[in-house]
C-alpha cells in the first residue's frame, strides 16, 4: 500500500507542472468566466452582478444571431467537405502508386505552413484580378467572382481554403487504413465485392472509429474557426464571414465587454457540447470497433 501511495505521489509530482498549469490557467478561468458571464465586467472596474441579463441580451442581438448562423453555415460546408476530401485522399494515397511517399508528403505539407502564411497565400490566390484561381477559371472561359469582397462568395472561398489543411486528417486516416486486416479484403473479394464494395463493406466500417475521431475534432475546429477569417476577411464583407469566435473576441478585447463575451463563450461551449454529444449518440449505429 505504501509503495502504491509513493508511486502515486511520484506520478503526481511528475505531472504536477501540467496539472498546476491546467488548474490555474484553464480550469479556474473557465469556472470564473461563468461567474463573469453573469456580470457587467470590463476588466478594470469591479464586476457588477446582473444575473442572466447578458444571456437575455444575446437573444436580442442580431449580430450574435448573424455570427451564429455564419458559423453553422461554415460548419455545414466544411465538415462534410473536409471529411470527404481527406478520406478520399487517404484512400487514394493508400493505393500502391509510383511516388506514393512523395504524394503523401505533398498532401501533408500545407498543414505545416503557419496559418498567417497560408492566409496570405490564399488571399493572393483568390485575388480576382491577379489570382491564380480566377486566371485558371478564365482559361476555361468562366469569369471568376470577386471571392472575398462579394458576400455570396466570401464564405465558400473560406470553405475552399479550409480544404488546404486536410493533411493532418489524411495522415490519421492513413494510419487507420494500415490497421484494416488484409484477410477481410480477401474474403470480400472471394464473395465477389468490387472496389467500391470493398470500400463500403470493409474499409469504411473498419475505419469508422478514425472517422468518428476526425469528425469530433472537425466539429470542435470548425465551430471555433477564428484565425483564417480574422486575417483574410475580418468578418466582411458586411459581416458575411463574421463568426461567433470573432464576435466573442471583439466583445472581450475591442469593446471590453468581458461579461457579455463570457456569456457568448458559454453558449459556444454548449453548442460544441451538444453537437459532440449528438455525434457520440449516433456513433453507436455507425462506429464499429474491432473485437466488439
Amino acid at each position: 500500500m505504501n509503495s502504491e501511495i509513493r508511486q502515486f505521489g511520484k506520478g503526481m509530482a511528475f505531472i504536477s507542472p501540467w496539472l498546476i498549469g491546467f488548474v490555474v490557467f484553464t480550469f479556474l478561468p473557465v469556472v470564473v468566466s461563468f461567474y463573469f458571464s453573469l456580470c457587467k465586467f470590463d476588466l478594470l472596474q469591479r464586476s457588477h452582478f446582473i444575473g442572466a441579463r447578458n444571456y437575455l441580451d444575446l437573444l436580442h442581438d442580431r449580430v450574435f444571431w448573424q455570427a451564429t448562423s455564419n458559423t453553422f453555415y461554415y460548419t455545414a460546408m466544411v465538415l462534410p467537405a473536409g471529411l470527404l476530401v481527406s478520406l478520399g485522399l487517404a484512400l487514394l494515397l493508400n493505393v500502391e502508386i509510383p511516388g506514393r511517399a512523395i504524394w503523401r508528403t505533398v498532401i501533408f505539407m500545407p498543414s505545416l505552413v503557419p496559418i498567417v502564411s497560408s492566409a496570405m497565400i490564399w488571399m493572393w490566390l483568390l485575388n480576382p484580378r491577379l489570382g491564380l484561381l480566377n486566371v485558371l477559371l478564365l482559361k476555361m472561359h468562366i469569369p471568376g467572382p470577386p471571392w472575398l469582397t462579394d458576400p455570396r462568395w466570401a464564405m465558400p472561398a473560406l470553405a475552399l481554403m479550409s480544404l488546404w489543411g486536410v493533411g493532418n486528417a489524411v495522415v490519421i486516416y492513413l494510419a487507420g487504413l494500415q490497421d484494416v486486416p488484409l484477410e477481410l479484403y480477401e474474403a470480400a473479394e472471394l464473395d465477389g465485392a468490387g472496389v467500391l464494395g470493398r470500400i463500403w463493406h470493409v474499409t469504411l466500417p473498419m475505419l469508422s472509429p478514425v472517422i468518428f475521431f476526425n469528425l469530433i475534432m472537425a466539429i470542435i475546429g470548425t465551430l471555433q474557426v477564428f484565425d483564417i477569417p480574422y486575417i483574410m476577411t475580418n468578418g466582411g464583407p458586411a459581416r458575411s464571414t463574421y463568426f461567433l469566435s470573432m464576435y466573442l473576441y471583439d466583445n472581450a478585447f475591442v469593446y471590453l465587454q468581458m461579461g457579455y463575451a463570457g456569456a457568448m463563450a458559454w453558449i459556444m461551449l454548449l453548442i460544441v457540447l451538444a453537437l459532440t454529444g449528438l455525434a457520440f449518440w449516433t456513433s453507436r449505429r455507425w462506429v464499429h470497433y474491432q473485437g466488439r
Partner: protein
Amino acid sequence: MVRRLLSKALIAVMIASAVAMLAFGPRPKMSAPQGRVRIQYWDKWTGLEAEQAQEIVDAFNKTVGKEKGIWVDFTSMSQIDRKTLIATAAGVPPDVAGLWDVQVLQFAAMGALEPLDSYAREYGLTRDHYKRVFYDGCEYHGTLYGIPSTVYSTALIWNKELFRQKAAQLQAAGLDPNRAPRTLEELDKYAAAIDTWVTRDGRKHLAVAGYIPLLPDMANVNNLTAYWFNAQIANADGTKVLLTEPEMFAAYNWVRGFSERLGKPALAEFRSGFSSGDTGLFDTPQNPFLVGWIAMEPQGAWVSAFIEKYKPSMDRAHLPPDQLQREKDFDKIELGMGLEEVQQLLGPGDSPSGGYTVPPQVASGARMLRWPAGVKEIYVTFVDGKVSAKQWKWLPAKMRQQYCQWGAAPFPSGVPGLENVTAAGMDVWVIPSTSQHKNEAMEFIAFASRQDQIEKLSSDHCNLSPLAVESPEYFQNHPNPYVDVFEALAASPNARGLPQLIDWPQIADELKQVGERSYLLEGTTAQILSDAQRRCQRELNKAINLPADTNLDLHEMAQ
C-alpha cells in the same frame, strides 16, 4: 532499484534545470545606472519607427534623465492597447504607454488613465500649446488624459499624370486638369471623367477609377466619411448617436452612388483587385494610387513615405535629367575620394551658403560643396582635397512639389462654404492610473513633447506635429513635400477628431457595416442607417448605463 535511481536522477535534473534558469537565465539587455528611478515605456511602434522612438528615449536617458535620476526602458510591442489594459488591471502597468486616440475615452471612462491636467500645466503642455483638435481629443469630460504624440490629418491626394492623360475628357466636362477638385460635386465629375473601362472576355472591367470611397485599410478615415457632409455622428456629451441625421443620409447616399454609377459587380471586382479581403495594400507597392489604378485618394501625410519607398519616380517626375542622375551618382561617392573625381561625377557644385537654409557645420580647414540631386541637396565635405563626410537633406518643399507627379489638396466637402474639413487622429502618450512613477513618467512625456523632439519624431514617422506652431526647420526637414497642406488642415477649425463616444470601437464597427452595406446596395440608405442607429444607441445606452430604450427615436429621413 534502477528505476528508483532513475526517477530520483530525473527529479534532480529537473530541479537543477530550474535553479540554473533562475541563476543564469535571460537578463535585460541594458541595466539602468545606479540610483536612477527606472520607468517602463511601451509603445506600438515597431521596426524603424521603434528605432526612432528609441532615439528620443536615449536622448532623455543621457540628458534630463541623468540630471533628474530617471531611466526609461522602452519596449516596442503589438496590440499595445490590450496589453496595457491587462497590465493595468493586473497592477503592473507601464509608466508611459503610447496608445491610439480611440483608447483615451474608452480607458479614461474605466478609470484606467491618470488625469494629466496638473502635470501638463506644470510643463506648459497647455491647450494653446497644441492644435485644438488634438488637445480636445485627449480630454474626457473636460479632463486631460493623454498628451498627443504624432498626429495626422486627411487630405485628397491626386495623380497629376492621370489628370494630364485625361485632360481632354476633363476639359470636355468643364474641368481644369491642372488642379484638384474643390467641391464634392466637382470630385464626382472628375472621377467620372477619369474612370477608364476595358473589355475583356466580352465583359467591361473598370481599369482606372477616378475615385472610389471606403478604401480597404483606411477605417480611420472611412468611418468618418460623414464629416465631409458636416455630420456630427454623436451629440457633444456622448449620450446620443446621430446616425439618422440628414447629413449622414447625404454621406452614405454619396457612397452608394458609386456602386450605382459604376455597377456593384464592377466595383467589387475593382476593389478586390488591390486588396485581399479586408486587408488593403496601402503600405505596399500594390497601393492602387501608386500603381495608377486610382487617381484620387484620401490619405494622411504618411503616404509620401510609401511613395518614396515604393515608387520614388512619382516624386521625381519633372526633374531635370542631370539632377536625377546626380542623385544616383551620390551613392558612388566614398570617403577618401578626391575632389576632382567627385566633381567629375556630380559636376562642379557650389557653396552651401548659396541661399539655402542651415548648411551643416564645416570644420575649419575643410571645404564643403553642395549639389541639388534628385529631390535632395547633397553636401560633401573635403579635408585636404579628399571626401571626409557626405550628407543630404530635402530640397525645400515648394521646389519638390514642382517635381511631383502627385499633389495634395483639402478633401472637398459636400456642403457649400464648409472648407478645410479633415478627419484628424493621433497617437497619444498616457500614464496608466496604477503606475508607480507618475512624476517620472510625466518628466519623460514632457521631454518627448519638446518642440525639437516631437517635430523630429513626427518627421521621422512622416506624420504631423501636434503643436500649434511649427518651426521652419520642421517644414524643411519633413519628407512630405505637401506637409504644409496637411498641417493647415490639422489647424483648421473644421478639423474633426473622433466623436466623444466611450464605445467608439463598437460604433466604428457599425459604421463600417453601414459603408459596406451601402456600396453593396443592401437596402436603402435610410434602412441601413436606421438599423445601425438602433443598434449603436442600444450599445451606447449599455455602455453609459442608461435605460435600454433611451434615445431610440429615429430621425425621419428622406427616402
